[in-house]
């Protein structure tokens, strides 16, 4: 694997080498040629590591208040300064990565688990099953993502778990629609026709023959959805509907920072920068994956 991804690969203009080359390996090579996507992957990994290692690498306790160190400007002692309760902003940003990445990763996973089976069912079954599932999907998509998430979170009550559930539900219709479209496309192909004529039951066709073929577009959409989910979690936490104080989350840190904009601007700069970087990284990664996995969709 690493050999094919190394710079030893023939330059783009060279004629194709007649050598056994799996589609997966070719996709991987296309991905690694995409420098910005690799950069996105690296930044994502750095944030994941920061989130995982926060208890060991954070210089201070993220919730320990200190009345003698309130709103200190960034210094060698406190890289990102301290907040209105004397807590270390750098440590809180590190710990905040946990809430953001967990919300992004878990809610999109839940959205996939919720959306894909319904999409496959709608696409393969057709008829009234498809009509009902499609109309419900349309109904959910007719409310903008963030407003749906806010309304759901409001009725569920303020907590990080509820925010994640709200984001997962709001993000699922896009996966229903994607899986449905791909399943309908696959249903018309000869290999599914062949599998059906051999007497395979529908669930087996869905899981063994259709699902593997729709993984690439789902992976691309999931990556871009994580970016959206991270912004949504930050937005909900900013509104007080996500992570509850004193636990750190980038959104709630920005909410507190707004009140001290004149005295302590660093409180607002760093958590926002963290959201921006991680979202940018996921978007770069998603764009790169799209180019690598589905060259036809370029520029869409």
């Amino acid at each position, binding site marked *: 694997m690493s050999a094919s991804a190394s710079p030893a690969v023939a330059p783009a203009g060279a004629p194709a080498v007649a050598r056994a080359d799996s589609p997966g390996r070719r996709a991987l090579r296309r991905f690694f040629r995409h420098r910005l996507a690799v950069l996105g992957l690296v930044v994502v990994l750095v944030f994941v590591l920061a989130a995982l290692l926060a208890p060991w690498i954070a210089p201070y306790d993220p919730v320990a208040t200190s009345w003698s160190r309130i709103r200190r400007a960034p210094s060698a002692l406190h890289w990102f300064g301290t907040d209105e309760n004397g807590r270390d902003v750098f440590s809180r940003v590190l710990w905040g990565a946990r809430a953001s990445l967990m919300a992004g990763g878990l809610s999109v996973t839940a959205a996939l688990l919720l959306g894909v089976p319904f999409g496959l069912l709608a696409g393969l079954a057709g008829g009234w099953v498809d009509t009902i599932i499609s109309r419900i999907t349309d109904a959910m998509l007719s409310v903008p993502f963030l407003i*749906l998430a806010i309304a759901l979170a409001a*009725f569920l009550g303020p907590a990080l778990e509820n925010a994640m559930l709200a984001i997962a539900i709001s993000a699922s219709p896009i996966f229903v629609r994607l899986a449905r479209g791909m399943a309908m496309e696959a249903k018309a192909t000869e290999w599914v026709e062949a599998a059906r004529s051999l007497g395979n039951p529908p669930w087996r066709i869905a899981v063994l023959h259709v699902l593997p073929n729709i993984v690439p577009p789902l992976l691309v959409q999931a990556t871009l959805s994580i970016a959206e989910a991270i*912004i949504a979690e930050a*937005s909900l936490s900013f509104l007080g509907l996500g992570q509850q104080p004193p636990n750190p989350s980038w959104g709630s840190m920005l909410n507190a920072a707004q009140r001290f904009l004149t005295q302590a601007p660093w409180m607002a700069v760093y958590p*926002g920068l963290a959201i*921006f970087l991680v979202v940018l990284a996921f978007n770069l990664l998603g764009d790169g994956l799209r180019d690598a996995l589905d060259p036809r969709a370029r520029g869409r």
Partner: protein
Amino acid sequence: MWGWLLRRLGQIIPTLLILSVLIFALQQLMPGDPAIIMAGEERGDPQVLAEIRAELMLDRPLWEQYGAWLWRLLHGDLGFSWRIRQPVGELILEKLPVTLQLGLMAFVIAVVIGVPAGIVSAAYRDRPADWAANGIALAGISTPNFWLGIMMILLFSVNLGWLPPSGYVPLTEDWRQSLATTIMPAFVLGGGIAGVFMRHTRAAMIGALGQDYVRTARAKGLPERVVIGRHALRNALIPVVTLGTIELGRLLAGAVLTEQIFSIPGFGKLIVDAVFNRDYPVVQGVVVVTALIFVTLSLIGDLLYMAINPRLRVA
């Protein structure tokens, strides 16, 4: 065309009905007894609670509650705010013009930045101008707009002192002050959408520039300015117009946080305040109105698409 329109409406009506069920069902997620929340200070009085329950029909079966709710909804009655003690419809109508002003300004900013950037980017494909435009667009899409808002307040209000950090003056009162209070939020709202417009315009232009008629125009010796401006752009803008109507609807969602940051008393601030006050009828009403606006806009988008693309009229 008429057949298509009827089919489209035939899809919209069941969609809206299902949506009404979903929005009604939101109430069932609510922890605790709505009567107690609504009673406020008088929650200890069983007499008051019973009266509220009867009034809200909480003592009736669910389907009956839904039927009554839908019936009122169809008559334009969005319910009554628990906190502000005013009909929800009136509240929304009061706030909507503010958001409309903000949204239209943001939309203009997004189009003025995004569409030319997309054209330039496509014309100079894979050259520095294209990379720069792509980079800025991606940054715009990746910036959470509430953070951009805070950073702009920090720069233009706190450090430079050029613009008021928050508040709102209606257009009818003083248009200069009105623009001063809305220009930053409009830019925050429009910035991310400019990125979306840029990417779509670029993709559509690249598609159009690869067409035969563009090659013909070039072969005739037309200057590049005419080829791009008159031949490619006209065709490239068709999908962008449809997208525009959808993005206009999405501005409503962006307005929620932006209005909160800049303390602008619009539609978005209404839902946030309602969430804080646990004023559920207002939350529901805002979701209903947003969905109606969104569905109407996407229908208008489809109609515009048909109107400017004659090839689709027969379908």
